[in-house]
C-alpha cells in the first residue's frame, strides 16, 4: 500500500494518499475519560481523480464515503494522510491555517451538500446565500455582483426573481440548484457532490443529475460523486471506487465495474440493484450477516466474514489494493 499503487501523473488533479480518520471511543470516568477503542471511519485510503472526470464513490451507509469527502476539504480534521491538489497538499495548508492560502484552496475546491433543506441558512434570501462567496473571496468587483448573481442563477436553471426568496419557498430540487450555484460561485475546478440527489424526490433526481453533467461539460469541472445509489453513479461517473468499512476494495472504469465486478462485495452491491423487469429473476443477495462495527474491524480481509469465497488466507492477511488488469485496482485474494 504505497504510492506506487497510485500512479501519479499530469492528468491527475487530485491525489489522496493514506487518508485516515479515527474517532477515539472514550469511557467517561468520574474524573477523567479513558480511551477504550477507536472507530476507523476512513482507514488509510488512497486514490486519484483525473482532470475533467467524475469519480464515483459508492458503498453502504457508514462506510466512510462522506467522512473521506469532508476530510478532503477539512470540514473535519483527518487523523493523517494528505490530499494533493496539483502539487499542493491541501490538508497541510488547512492545518497551517494561513487564511490567504486556505481561501485560495477554497476557491478551487467546493462541496455540494447532501440535504438542501439543511444546507441553506433559513434566514437568508437566496441572494444573500449566493453573494456570501463573493463577500468572502472578493474575486468579483462589487459592481459586477448583481450581474454574476443572475448569471449563476441562470446557470443552474433558476430565474432572477428567485434571488429574493427564502429557502423555505423552494422545492427540494430548486434548493439543490441553489446549493450547486453556491459551490460554483467561486469558480472552482473540483466539486465534491455528496449524495446530491438522495434527499430529493425521484422525479427531480434526473433533472439535477443532468444539470451536474451539463455543468461539468460547460465549466470543465472535475467531480467526486458520492452515493449509495448505483444507478445514479453509473449515470454520472467515469470511474468508480467501491468502499467497504473505511477502505477502497475495488476501483475501475464504470463500464468494467458494472459489467464485470471482480470483488465479491462489488458483485453483491450490483446484484442488489432492482431491475424493473418482472421476467428478470431478482438478484439474490450473496451477502450474509451485517456490516461489522467500525470499532471491531475483522482481521485479514475486512470483508471475509460475509464473503462467499473466503478462505484461510482471507482471515489472516489483508489484501492490498493492487492493479488487476487494465485500469482496475482490486483488494481481494480470490477475485471473481
Amino acid at each position, binding site marked *: 500500500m504505497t504510492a506506487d499503487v497510485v500512479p501519479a501523473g499530469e492528468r491527475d488533479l487530485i491525489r489522496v494518499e493514506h487518508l485516515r480518520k479515527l474517532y477515539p471511543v472514550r469511557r467517561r470516568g468520574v474524573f477523567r475519560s479513558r480511551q477504550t477503542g477507536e472507530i476507523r471511519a476512513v482507514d488509510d485510503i488512497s486514490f486519484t481523480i483525473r482532470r475533467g472526470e467524475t469519480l464515483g464513490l459508492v458503498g453502504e451507509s457508514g462506510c466512510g464515503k462522506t467522512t473521506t469527502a*469532508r476530510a478532503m*476539504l477539512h*470540514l473535519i480534521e483527518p487523523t493523517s494522510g494528505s490530499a494533493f491538489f496539483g502539487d499542493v497538499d491541501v490538508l497541510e495548508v488547512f492545518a497551517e491555517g494561513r*487564511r490567504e492560502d*486556505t*481561501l485560495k484552496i*477554497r*476557491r478551487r475546491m*467546493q*462541496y455540494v*451538500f*447532501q*440535504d438542501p433543506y*439543511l*444546507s*441553506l*441558512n*433559513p*434566514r437568508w434570501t437566496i*441572494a*444573500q446565500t449566493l*453573494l*456570501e*462567496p463573493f*463577500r*468572502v*473571496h472578493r474575486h468579483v468587483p*462589487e459592481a459586477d*455582483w*448583481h450581474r454574476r*448573481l443572475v448569471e449563476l442563477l441562470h446557470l443552474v436553471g433558476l430565474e432572477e*426573481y428567485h*434571488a*429574493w*426568496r*427564502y429557502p*423555505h*419557498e423552494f422545492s427540494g430540487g430548486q434548493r439543490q440548484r441553489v*446549493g450547486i450555484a*453556491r459551490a460554483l460561485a*467561486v469558480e472552482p475546478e473540483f466539486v465534491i457532490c455528496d449524495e446530491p440527489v438522495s434527499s430529493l424526490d425521484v422525479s427531480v433526481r434526473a433533472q439535477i443529475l443532468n444539470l451536474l453533467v451539463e455543468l461539468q461539460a460547460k465549466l470543465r469541472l472535475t467531480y467526486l460523486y458520492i452515493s449509495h445509489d448505483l444507478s445514479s453513479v453509473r449515470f454520472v461517473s467515469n470511474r468508480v471506487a467501491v468502499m467497504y468499512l473505511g477502505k477502497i476494495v475495488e476501483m475501475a472504469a464504470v463500464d468494467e465495474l458494472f459489467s464485470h465486478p471482480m470483488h465479491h462485495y462489488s458483485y453483491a452491491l450490483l446484484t442488489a440493484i432492482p431491475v424493473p423487469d418482472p421476467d428478470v429473476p431478482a438478484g439474490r443477495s450473496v451477502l450474509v450477516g451485517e456490516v461489522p462495527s467500525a470499532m471491531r474491524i475483522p482481521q485479514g480481509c475486512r470483508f471475509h466474514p460475509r464473503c462467499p469465497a473466503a478462505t484461510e488466507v482471507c482471515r489472516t492477511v489483508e489484501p492490498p489494493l493492487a492493479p488487476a488488469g487494465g485500469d482496475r485496482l482490486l483488494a481481494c485474494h480470490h477475485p471473481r
Partner: protein
Amino acid sequence: MTEAPAAAALATAPPARPPGMWRQGWQRFRRNRTGMLGLTLVCIVVLVALSCAWIAPYEPNDQSAMMRFGSREGPTWAHLFGTDRMGYDVLTRVLYGAPTALAVGIGAMLVASVIGILIGGISGYLGGMADELLMRFTEFFLVIPVFIVILAVVRLFGIVVVGSPLESIPYLNLMTIILLLGLFGWPSIARMTRAEFLRLKEMEFVEAARCIGATRRDIILRHILPNALPSLVVIVALGIGGAILAEAMISFLGFGDPKAISWGQLLFFNYEALKVAPWASIAPGSAIFMTVLGFNLLADGLSDAFNPRLKQ
C-alpha cells in the same frame, strides 16, 4: 456588512417581499389567542410607562390630599383608585410604577442576555474543556440562593455608599437591584444559547459557510446567532416577567429604592392598612399580576410561534 452591498447589488428588488422567519412567526403568533392577550397586556404596560407623565391625574409626589384629611380615602371622582395612607393618589402612583417595572425587567434581562449569550455561545461553539468549565460555572450560579444574596448586597451597598460621591447618583439603589438581577439571571439564557449553538454548529449550512471560507466571526454572528434568536427571545420575555416579580418582592420587603416608585414598594407601604384601605394594596398588586402575566403569556405565545413542529 453584506446587507449594504447586497442591497446595492439588488437595487431592482421587487416591492413585495416574501415572508421571512420573523414574519412567518408573527403570522402564527397572531392566531394564538393567549399569546395575543399577553402582547396586549405588555403593550398596555409599555404605553402607560411612556405616557404616565401626561395621563396621570396628579404629580407622583403630590400629598395635598392630606391637607383635606383625605388619606386612606376610598375611590372618588377626584381620586379614582382612592388615596393611600400618606395621601398619595393611588392611580397616579400605580401609573408611575410602570416605567420602573419595565426598566427593571428590560434592564436586568439586557445585562443577563449579554452575559448569558457570551458564556453560552463560547461554551456551545468551542465545546470540550471550555464547555465543561463554563457549564460548571453556570450551574454554580444556578444553585446560589439569589434572593438572599440580593437583599444582603442591597443593604450592605446602601450602607457603604453613604457619604461617598456615589450617593449623588439618582436611583443608585434601583440600578444596583437591576444589575444584581441581571448578574444572577443569566444562567438560563446561557444554557439555552449553548443548546442552540450545539445544535446549529453541526448544521449543514454552517459547514457550507466554512467550506466557502467564511471567518469564524461571520459564522457565529451571521449564521448561528440569528438562528438561535427565536428561542432566546422566548426565554428573555419570560425573564422580564421574572425580574419584575423579583423586584416587587425586594421592594415589598423594604429593600427597594426609596426614591423610585415601584409596585412592590406601594404594597410595602400599604399592606398594614389592608383592611382599612384595601384599594391602596389591590391596585399595585393587580398591576404586578397583569404585567407578569402579560410577559409570561407573551413568552408562551412566542415559543409556540417559533416552534417549527407546529408549522402549518
